[in-house]
């Protein structure tokens, strides 16, 4: 059990810090949260800077244009960029973390050449069209139909909760190509150009008031068969491959940020007198234990995946269950530190974070589904039941 970093890792960290210090002051001002084209440009601009400096696709395999960095280097990258206050991955999320890795693993040489470089360079934005109105947790029951017509698929149906759909160039789309097959076997993975005729995107307002996801209506959208990654009806497996790019690093930056917020909460409480409330103080103390342990659990999971040559361990669901809950507790505590005048001010950062924290136990597998995964896949309890 070793928590010290090697000389090589420390050198990587030092160089990264130096670069961040040189590049961050020159960034343009952050766009307002509702300015989606502005946010797209800002996020892509950051990705371009990463690319020029050789930090793009750090965790991607080298033969996909990435740096083939170790999970530990990726952890250091995410830790340092967060500490330095660098921009988040933002609109580049699906391209860098889902669609890109899927294409890298399952795409043909032409597909990799067409789609991967623009993601790394910050030229193109991807979104993820998986969820449907009637297929959420039970994703494999999705019904959006794709019918073969010569060298095209003709796609009809609707998708929902598609983050960044309004500003995306491409959509990684799951469609049903064989309605007769068992539900996991009739699904195909397609890259859909977002400017194709027949796509209607209607923004949905989140409870935080912003329009960060959307509904997508697909009406006879023609998608070239050449845009299919993997075999027809093999899309479920193709999609699951992407998950293997999760190497315990998914929430590194966020845990760092939460620990910073916790320190700010304590400082604020000491200033405004709420620190004298022993119940609140102890609540913050407990959160300190939680987030310190979550940081160590991150290091544990990353080390595990590093030892396995980058293959993820089973710790992701365990981590997400506890982290998503702790994050909600943190911003509830923030509301108490702020008092009514701050906590009910919709323009306060911590109020927005408190609202958005509610999505953490829903998105990317709800907590109930995560409990099922832990119980069935890790503990080996029987599937099914009610």
């Amino acid at each position, binding site marked *: 059990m*070793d928590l010290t970093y090697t000389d090589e890792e420390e050198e990587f960290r030092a160089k990264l810090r130096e670069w961040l210090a040189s590049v961050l002051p020159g960034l343009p001002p952050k766009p307002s949260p509702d300015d989606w084209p502005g946010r797209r440009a800002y996020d892509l601009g950051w990705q371009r800077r990463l690319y020029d400096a050789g930090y793009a696709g750090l965790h991607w395999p080298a033969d996909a244009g990435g740096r083939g960095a170790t999970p530990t280097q990726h952890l250091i990258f995410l830790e340092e960029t967060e500490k330095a206050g660098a921009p988040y991955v933002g609109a580049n999320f699906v391209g860098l973390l889902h669609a890109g890795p899927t294409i890298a693993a399952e795409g043909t040489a032409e597909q990799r050449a067409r789609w991967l470089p623009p993601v790394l360079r910050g030229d193109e934005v991807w979104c993820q069209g998986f969820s449907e109105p009637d297929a959420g947790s039970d994703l494999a029951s999705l019904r959006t139909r794709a019918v073969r017509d010569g060298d095209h698929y003709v796609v009809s149906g609707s998708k929902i909760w598609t983050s960044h759909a309004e500003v995306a160039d491409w959509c990684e789309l799951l469609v049903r190509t064989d309605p007769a097959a068992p539900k996991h076997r009739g699904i195909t993975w397609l890259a859909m150009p977002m400017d194709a005729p027949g796509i209607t995107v209607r923004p949905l307002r989140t409870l935080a008031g912003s329009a960060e996801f959307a509904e997508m209506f697909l009406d006879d959208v023609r998608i070239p068969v050449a845009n299919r990654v993997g075999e027809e009806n093999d899309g479920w497996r193709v999609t699951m491959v992407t998950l293997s790019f999760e190497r315990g690093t998914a929430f590194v930056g966020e845990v760092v940020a939460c620990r910073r917020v916790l320190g700010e909460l304590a400082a604020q409480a000491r200033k405004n007198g709420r620190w004298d409330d022993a119940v609140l103080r102890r609540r913050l103390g407990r959160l300190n*234990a939680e987030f310190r342990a979550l940081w160590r659990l991150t290091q544990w999971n990353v080390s595990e995946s590093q030892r396995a040559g980058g293959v993820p361990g089973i710790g992701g669901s365990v981590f997400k269950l506890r982290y998503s809950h702790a994050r909600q507790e943190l911003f509830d505590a923030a509301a108490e530190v702020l008092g009514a005048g701050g906590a009910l001010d919709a323009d306060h950062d911590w109020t927005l974070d408190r609202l958005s924290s509610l999505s953490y136990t829903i998105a990317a597998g709800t907590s109930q589904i995560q409990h099922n995964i832990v119980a069935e896949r890790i*503990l080996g*309890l029987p599937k099914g039941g009610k």
Partner: protein
Amino acid sequence: MDFQLTDDQRALRQGVRDLLAGRFDRDALRAAVDVPGHLDRELWRALGEAGFFALRLPEADGGVGLGLPEAVLVFEEAGRVLLPGPLVATHLAAGTVPGAATGETVVTDADGELLPWLDASDVVLADASGAAPLRSVDPLTPLHRLPGPYAPRTPEAVLLTAAEQLGSAGRTCEMAVQHAREREQFGQPIGAFQAVKHLCAQMLVRTELARAAVYAAAVTGDPVETAAAELLADEAAVRNARDCVQVHGGMGFTWEADVHLHLKRAWVRAGAGRTARETEEVLAAAL
């Protein structure tokens, strides 16, 4: 960074697990329950021979020369099987009290307001005058109550106790899962019901978070990290034991099932140390 067990650490853990499986199996556990207050001196010497107490003494002094991370792994195993006796006190006395390192001498010390194993010990480090016996809730830990004031646990005692709590939490999670796989109701294993499944998943989550905290504190020796380990391990041990009772149904409420032994020992370990409140204050002050 390589925050995983080394091969040597894995081998050590396995060695201790095998030793305890041979020397302190379920029959031995139940026999110990039936004769409260009796400490098996032969087992104690066997532990001494295996290096349980001398683990962290330098090799030049006849010790094993290992560190706190290894000690934590060993105490985790002890916690898994509910190994009785003043293990932490004797381990911590190995360098100072003659015979402690080899398991010849049983050493006890005050643990907060409690003095465990007074009658069975050879050496008592605390001032035992005024110690009054009480009928211990835990049949595996005889207790005396001490008149105050009480000295707090040393950081090492805190951590080794947390390691025992971690072992107990992991074990009750396993026991619950095993029962949930085997016991059938409504024509299916009860582990197929989500309500049961989710209890078990929560038990694992608590255990793994506590594990990360305990192991990290053993590596860094940091007092705040140790406080985090204590808080999370106490909570994991106590809550897992309660959930394990629940998963066992009526069986869980019997003297026969082992789970109450885990709950009671977890209470003793948590109760003798800092209160959760005090630990949270330490953690708050560090913010």
